[in-house]
């Protein structure tokens, strides 16, 4: 799947992206923000044409925010997002709206991301209407086509979102993202609301479609087994930062960051042995309002030293294509 490194064409480059959400104090907006939620800090990565990049992390680590800022759904605080050379953050709204055709998103909760009062046909057609594509009849045909592609029946055109099962809704979310024939699709936890037996249907479909349509995927998830299955490269996020990035096989064969190691070991594994030996991380994830100094992971890291507490580790290539932010990797 992953093309040879030399042949890879960068499609989307994220450079030092940061996003802070202000938290207002008792005087509201009057006296400015009191504190900031550091949702995403200094995140950089590149999406190459046709690949799937997996972003993994625990709840609140900033995965969704990364995805949303990349698509300009929420303004960046600093950094840039370059899509085919254009900085999306600096684009006027009108042009950004035009570019949306090529940058689509599949949302985490398939039910609440479908307007409950509209029939599926209308929901899927709306994207075409917005971009003034085709006439009425052709649009309808396009919808039938896309329904078929994601494995639904033309009959479903006339139904309301609540008349679908979870897996079907997720297919609808996908259909909506794909109907504009985008080049990049950000999938924000597209399977985490589904049962295992349905999850595999969606994952298989996603992989097939990617191959057929030549999509580039940014796949966000907290499920390590899923991300391993779907991605070519993986970034591990912790507290708003990417702490490690590597091609999938390399990462699983040889995780270097202590957090990655703990994460992998915490995953309940199907085995016949019963409770296995593992590194259970102590403590809780720190608050993004005041991230720890130095290495953000030092509060829970079994190997932390004084250096970790004071000095933020640099982002460095520890192996070919394998980057880690740890002093001791």
């Amino acid at each position, binding site marked *: 799947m992953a093309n040879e490194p030399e042949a890879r064409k960068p499609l989307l480059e994220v450079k030092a992206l940061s996003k802070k959400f202000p938290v207002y104090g008792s005087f509201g907006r009057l006296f400015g923000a009191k504190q900031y939620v550091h949702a995403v800090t200094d995140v950089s990565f590149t999406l190459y044409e046709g690949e799937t990049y997996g972003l993994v992390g625990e709840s609140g680590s900033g995965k969704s925010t990364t995805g949303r800022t990349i698509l300009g759904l929420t303004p960046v605080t600093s950094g840039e997002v370059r899509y085919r050379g254009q900085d999306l953050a600096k684009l006027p709204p009108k042009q950004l709206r035009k570019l*949306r055709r090529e940058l689509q*998103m599949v949302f985490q909760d398939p*039910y609440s991301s479908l307007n*409950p009062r509209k029939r599926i046909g209308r929901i899927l057609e*709306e994207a075409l209407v917005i971009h003034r594509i085709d006439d009425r009849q052709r649009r309808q*045909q396009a919808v039938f086509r896309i329904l078929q592609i994601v494995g639904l029946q033309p009959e479903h055109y006339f139904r309301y979102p*609540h008349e679908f099962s979870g897996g079907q809704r997720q297919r609808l979310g996908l259909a909506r993202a794909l109907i504009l024939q985008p080049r990049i699709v950000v999938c924000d936890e597209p399977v985490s609301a589904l049962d295992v037996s349905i999850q595999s249907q969606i994952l298989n479909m996603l992989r097939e479609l990617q191959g057929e349509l030549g999509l580039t995927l940014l796949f966000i998830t907290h499920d390590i087994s899923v991300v391993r299955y779907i991605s070519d490269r993986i970034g591990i996020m912790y507290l708003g930062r990417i702490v490690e990035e590597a091609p999938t096989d390399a990462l699983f064969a040889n995780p270097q960051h202590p957090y990655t190691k703990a994460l992998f070991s915490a995953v309940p594994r199907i085995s016949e042995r019963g409770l296995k030996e593992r590194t259970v991380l102590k403590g809780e994830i720190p608050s993004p309002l005041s991230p720890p100094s130095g290495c953000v992971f030092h509060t829970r890291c079994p190997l932390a030293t004084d250096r970790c507490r004071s000095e933020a580790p640099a982002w460095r290539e520890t192996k070919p294509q394998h980057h880690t932010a740890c002093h001791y990797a």
Partner: protein
Amino acid sequence: MVENIHDQSQLDRLGQLGRKLRREQRLLSCFRLRTNYDLLIGAAVLGALIVLAFIGPLLSPYDPLEMKVLDRLKPPSAAHWLGTDEFGRDLLTRVLHGARLSLGIGITVTLLTSLLGLIIGVYAAFYKPLDHILMRICDGLIAFPGILLAIALMATLGASASNVIIALTIVFTPSIARTIRSTALVVREQPYIEAIRAQGATNARIIWLHIAPNALSPLLVQAAFVFAEAILSEAALSFLGAGIPAPAPSWGNILQASKSVISKAWWMVTFPGIALVLSVLSLNMLGDGLRDFLDPRSKRKGKGSRRVRRVAP
């Protein structure tokens, strides 16, 4: 397989299917309607009142304004089914005409407040700076008790039906706007709004095609209450002498006049009182029924999507 979707017969078939599905949908809501007694009774009583208000006076042999002072305050009889008032006018005719005015004011006020409230609420929810200005004004208006505001306005504008409507609209709009705003604020944060924005929709499209329709169902319910409140407030204003000026009959007017003869002419307070209570009751029932009808929880018995993960603190 993908190809044969494009042929015309296939499209026709789907068109038919769509019609069938829509019919089913309609049947389903018919069913939900049939078992919604609040809604049915409320609508029936209200409908009956409206019909009576508009055709009743045509059937009555009396003029609501014609005075026969010698016949004043006669109890109900064959000639005057509900008796006569203090000027010898036929009470039934006046109550029916009063229904026109009272219900008419209710309807107009409801439409005006809903429209204004919707516009103010939706825009306030969408545009932050506007929000602050609009909501401060609304706060101010809400903080000042409605009936007093209405009385002051009536004193300023002078008593007339249209001024009653203006006054009541000013009184009721802020709270409607607030309700709409709070729903719209919730709707605005819904993922499907973000989803449609991600498709490249313009703000106007988002506001009017997505936020407004979804903020509408609380409005419908509240509209029924505004309707009821407007009728009551008109009566209260008239009762205080600040409502519709006589001789035009409104329920409030008739009740106001009945106050001084209450121990002598029970019919003057009883019948318009019943009409008033009945209409407000039916409106409240309608509102309740509507809420149940529109409440998605009453149709989806099961649970929504599961395993929604905990949001970070």
